[in-house]
């Protein structure tokens, strides 16, 4: 398994954990308290911070131990890695566009700010996870 594939797997794990923690903190409040009183701002900030910390904490040991980085050539990505990266990011870009459009429609119809922020955050994290999942699938399946 190449270095970039390991990084993608680490990002996938960190993203799923951070998003799951956020959803477990916020979703149970929906319906039980008025939308305006749902505590979502600090869990959102914390979830983002948690994702970054987990990613950094995983990537540093990977980078320290991975042998490909220590190769004399110093090249960590090849043509296939770049093609996989491009395909994953293109998927993510399209999903992000769709969800931003959905958020715009919500604002247009005067939906509470809570739902607009959720669409952007869950959509942003979701599109990132889709991007990584496409990359991991391409690595495993062959691209």
């Amino acid at each position, binding site marked *: 398994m190449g270095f970039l594939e390991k990084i993608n797997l680490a990002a996938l794990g960190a993203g799923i954990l951070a998003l799951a923690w956020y959803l477990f903190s916020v979703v149970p409040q929906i319906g039980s308290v008025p939308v305006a009183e749902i505590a979502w*701002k600090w869990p*959102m*900030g914390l979830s983002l911070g948690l994702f970054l910390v987990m990613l950094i904490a995983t990537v540093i040991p990977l980078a320290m131990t991975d042998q490909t980085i220590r190769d004399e050539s110093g090249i960590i990505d090849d043509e296939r890695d770049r093609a996989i990266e*491009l*395909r994953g*990011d*293109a*998927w*993510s*870009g*399209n999903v*992000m*566009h769709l*969800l*931003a*459009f959905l*958020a*715009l429609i919500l*604002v*247009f119809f*005067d939906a509470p*700010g*809570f739902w*607009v*922020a959720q669409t*952007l*955050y869950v*959509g*942003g994290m979701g*599109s990132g996870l889709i991007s990584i999942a496409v990359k991991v699938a391409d690595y495993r399946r062959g691209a």
Partner: protein
Amino acid sequence: MSFHEKSNIAMLLLTGGVYTWYFASSAGVLLGGAASPELALVVTNAKMLVTVGAIIIASIIAHIAIAIAAPSEANENADERDKLVEMRGDQRGGYVMAVFALMGMGAAMIAQPYYLIANLILAGLVASELVKGVSKLVDYRRGV
């Protein structure tokens, strides 16, 4: 020049032109506080609808004109190069959209007026489309 390249140029010009008008004519409302937040939302919402309608109608007309000018090219399927150019554009546009989505989320977090959030998201969609269009234009001209 292929049908896909001409289509990209048409969409780039249309998006650039229509949304330059939109943001230039809404600058007073968006930046100067020329109207109350409620009125600003109503005004910009109405303009947004007009711009979306204008883009749809103008793009249909533009694509019909491109197809009439070169009928043989209109039925061409996207080849490997077209797909690569498209993906590179989607990738770059996606990065821009992600930055604006983060800004929109931040604006919602600090309870900014709705018209500002709506226009931040719209600006993101427009900016990402323009980046995507320019990326495709450059890739088609320079080669990938």
